[in-house]
Each structure stands twice: as C-alpha cells, then as structure tokens.
C-alpha cells in the first residue's frame, strides 16, 4: 500500500478488487494478493474513520460538552 494513500483512493481500489472478484475475473494466483490488499485497505479506511470520529468527538465536545 502506498504510504500517502488517501481514503477516497483506498475506497476506489477496494471497489475495483471486489468488482473483479464478483465478476469472477480474478486470477487464482493473484487472488490472495488482491484480497490481502483489500483487507489492508479496509483496515486503513476503518482506522481513518475511527480516528476521524475520535478527533471529531473531541472537537465537538468543545462546543457542546454534554453531547457524548
């Protein structure tokens, strides 16, 4: 995975991999690599969302301390 991957690009790549598997176009020799990549990207996206959520909560608490 690229070092400075962004969320949108990650999502695009995940979609691409899933579509290719869905369509049965995957190459068995490549399958492991692709699924491995997709899982890594999903983890990346999840952690990005989680950290954004945490940052956002901290931020929003400043304006609305009892909104937890």
């Amino acid at each position: 995975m690229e070092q400075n991957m962004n969320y949108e690009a990650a999502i695009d790549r995940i979609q691409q991999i899933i579509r290719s598997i869905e369509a049965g176009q995957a190459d068995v020799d490549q399958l492991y690599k692709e699924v491995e990549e997709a899982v890594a990207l999903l983890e990346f996206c999840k952690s990005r969302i989680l950290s954004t959520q945490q940052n956002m909560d901290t931020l929003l608490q400043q304006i609305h301390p009892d909104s937890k």
Partner: protein
Amino acid sequence: MREDSLTLYQLSTHLAQVVKQGLPNSYWVEAEISELRVNASGHCYMECIEKSVSGAIIAKAKATVWAKQWLAISAMFEQQTGISLKSGLKVLMEVCIDYHPLYGMSFQVQQLDPTYTLGDLQRQRRDILTRLEKEGVLELNKQLPIPLLPQRIAVISSPTAAGWGDFYDQINSRYRFDIQLFPAMMQGDQSPLSIINALDQIAISATNFDIVVIIRGGGATSDLHCFDHYELGAACAQFPIPIIVGIGHDRDINVLDYIAAISLKTPTAVASYLVDKMEQQEALLEGLSEILIQTTRNILRHHHQKIESYSYRLITHTKEFTNSQHRTLDQFRVQLGMQVPFYFKQKGLQLELLEQRVGLNSPQTILAKGYSITTHKGKIIRNIDSLSVADVIQTRLKDAIINSTINKL
C-alpha cells in the same frame, strides 16, 4: 379740570360694565400659552399669544383659571393628552371676557378642549417627521442592523429614575452585559438638549458600544411632549449606533419612537429584549452545534457502513470465488473418478475378448475336437521333409501321448 372728566376708577368701572354688557357670552378661542404659573392660592395665570406666519406676536392676552376649576381642568387635560398644561402649547379654551378696574382685561377660562391640543401636537410631530424625511434621515437609525449580541450598552437615563433601576434589575441575567450610564434629564424642556449632550458623549467612543438605550420610568402621566423635538429627533436619527427607546408610555407614540431602531414600552421591556436577543443567539448556536454534530456523525456512520459492506462483500465474494474454484476441481475429480474405472473396464473387456479368441484356437480345444498333434524332437511335424525311417515321433491326443517308430515313409 373739566366737569365731565372721570376718575380712573369711574372710567374703568364703566369699561368693565360695557365689556360685561357688550360681550356677555362665552367664546371659544384658539391661542398659544406663552406663560403659565399657579400661585399659592391655586389660581392659574396664563399669558396667551397668537403669532403670525412669520412668528411675530400679533395678539396677547391674560387668561385666568380659578383654583376651584384649575384642578379639574388641568387633570382632565393631562388625562386626555398625556401632557400637563404648560407654555408652548396651543389650546382651545372657552373664555368669558372680564375687565377689572385694578387687574385689567383678562379671560376667565371656563373649560379647555384637549382634542385641539392633541391635534396640534400631532401636527407638530408630523411636521418634525416630515422634515426629517425630507432631509433623508428619518429611517437612518432604523436601517442600522441590530447587533446579534448587543452586550455593550450605553444607557441614557436619569440615574435617580425608577426606570433605570427597573432596567438594571431586569438585565441582570446569566449573560454578561457591559453597561455604562450617561446621565441626562428625562423630562421637562431641558431634556432634549440634555439627551443630545449624552449622545455626543457616547459618540466620542462610539466603537465601544453595540447599542444605545434611552429609558425613563413610566409615570402615570408622562410628559412625552419634550421628545417631540426636531433637534433631538435629528440627532437620534443620524446616530451611528442603533437606539432602543423605552420611555414608559402606553399612549400614542412620539418622534423618538418613530426614529429609534426599536421602540418598546418600558425600560423593563428593553432589558427583556436584550436578554432575549442573547437567548436567541444561544439557542441558534446550540441548534447549529446539534446539526454539526449530527451531520458529522451521519457522514462517519455512512462511511463506516460503506466499509462494513465492502468487508462483507469482500469476504462473501472471495469465499464464493474459492468455492467455485473448489467446485470446478471437484467436478474434475468426479469426472476422473468416473472415467478411470470405465477406462479399466473397457480394457478388461478387450482383454476378455482377446482371451476368448485365444482360447478358441488353443491346442487343447483342437485336441478335444479329435485332432492330434505329432512332434519330432519337440517340433511340430508339418511335412515329411525332416523325417527319416526309424525316427521316433510323438503323437499327442486329447488325453494321451503315443510314441511311434516310423517303419516306412
């Protein structure tokens, strides 16, 4: 000395009689009060005038309201007009004309028609407003935007007035207001200039204030006429900070009410308005915060669901894919499993056929049919070329072997 001369008293008494006889009725007369005083006995003495269009005094007369009528007349006038009788007012009064040898000519006021004065005041007010409108300043203060948070307040009031206390009590809330009092006289003829002075003071540090409040305690009979003042109206209209007035009245409105950005009935109402403004903004901010929180949460939730669904799809489709690969392989195995026995069966059949065919032609079969095989030295004899007399040959039958010696060829 002439015989027909009269003493002053005689002439004056005669004059008094002539006046009484010649002008016995009462008259309704329009006049402007130029002076008014009530003496210790409670009698009211007025100086009445009429001015020409150019402003010159063209008539002048004394008028008197006796104490027994004064209380009723002045109270009724105040009650209906909201102002007290005083100099500068135009009045319509019913008078009897009296000439007194000692005090001279005077009008004895019987009654006053307050509606005339009211109409005149309204006309004056209209004139001031029309003039301000012509000068293009009438709406200027109204057009200033009211600050969202009017916290820095310049108050023009009399520090001893109840209105100031009411205002101060009411504005004391959970919000912080910076209030600075600019003392001014709030009633009487001096008040317009006093208020203008206070405005000038505020203007010096205008950037320190969000709003100007002009308040006055609401007495029962408020003298609001002083606020129908051209210079005061002009100063307020052109003031660079929005003005809120609460000069305690519930009758009709005066020039300041028209000019001010906001006009409220009482000082308490002004304070409530300011506190309400703060509350509105707080509620608005809370609403916006709520929307911000909900919206960001929704966006994150949406992305979270998206990721979840991708994870799910990745898992299921990968499984499906590998399953389908398994199935293909299984098919191959099944096909192989079926093909291999068939192959061997086929081969077996072929072998059996061959065996059968071999069996049909085997020596035993032939021997059983009655044929015999003759050999010489282990070799089947097909002709006599290799045979000689006395050779021993073997003849094989189905069930026996005969050894013979050749006697003759």
